[in-house]
């Protein structure tokens, strides 16, 4: 899967997994910050993203500090997934 297709897939999975009913795929920018002032995700959402990576991509995140970097944006998530051979 190329990078752009992966990002589109990730956005759809984020919306579904986090029940972001009022958000559409096109509302999420590739480099948009996901937490805090960005998409407004919270700590429970961070845990859901960890589950998402494990469920859909077979990647486990065990270090919370790693999560802060990986989940900064869709771009960073996609780069992380691709660097792990997906």
């Amino acid at each position, binding site marked *: 899967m190329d990078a752009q297709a992966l990002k589109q897939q990730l956005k759809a999975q984020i919306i579904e*997994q986090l*029940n972001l009913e*009022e958000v559409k795929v096109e509302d999420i920018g590739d480099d948009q910050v996901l937490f805090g002032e960005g998409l407004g995700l919270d700590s*429970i*959402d961070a845990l*859901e993203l960890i*589950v998402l990576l*494990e469920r859909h991509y077979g990647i486990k995140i065990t270090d919370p500090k790693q999560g802060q970097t990986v989940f900064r944006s869709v771009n960073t998530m996609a780069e992380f997934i691709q660097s792990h051979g997906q």
Partner: protein
Amino acid sequence: MTPIAHSRLSSGAFTLDGALLAAPSGAPDEALRAAYQALAMDYPKFHKMDRAAKLAMLVAEPVLRVARDRGADLAEGTAVLALSRSGSGSSDVEHWRVRQDTGLASPAVFVYTLPNIGVGELTIRHGIHGPSLCLMTDGPDSAESVMAARLLRKAPRVRWLVCLWSDIFAAHFEAQAVLFGPDEGLTNQADATTLFPSTP
């Protein structure tokens, strides 16, 4: 013991003091979404909540709007009593199902496997810092419900009291909310045995 405002939400009817706000029908998820849209709440976090918290949030919204219109001090002068029969049963079952299906727990589901989470969501949304209590009871007007309401009403600084009965499990859901103000003192009516009017 007459509340200032009384809302009811069940399949087919969402009312405030008998006036129809919406006629939500269909499965619970669909009906709750319709009720949310009817209130024009604009609260994205609503969609992340479980059904029990959504139901409590929705039925409380109209009476809290009345409270705000009447100048209630929601931050410091308001208490909340939440009553339910099934509590977090729906989310407990969902948590079990997700674990069976995927082998992984969903944090967003698991976080709602406590019956008092709906009160927390409600107080966060409305900035209510007063005392709150969540009780599991067989019905809205059990003896312990009335006793708990009196206790909350007597708490320091509390002048307004919101009582919620919300119950959802599988396809069944029903909820009521009443608002008592400073002049509708539960404390002075020792013989009162009900919180929720039978009509409308």
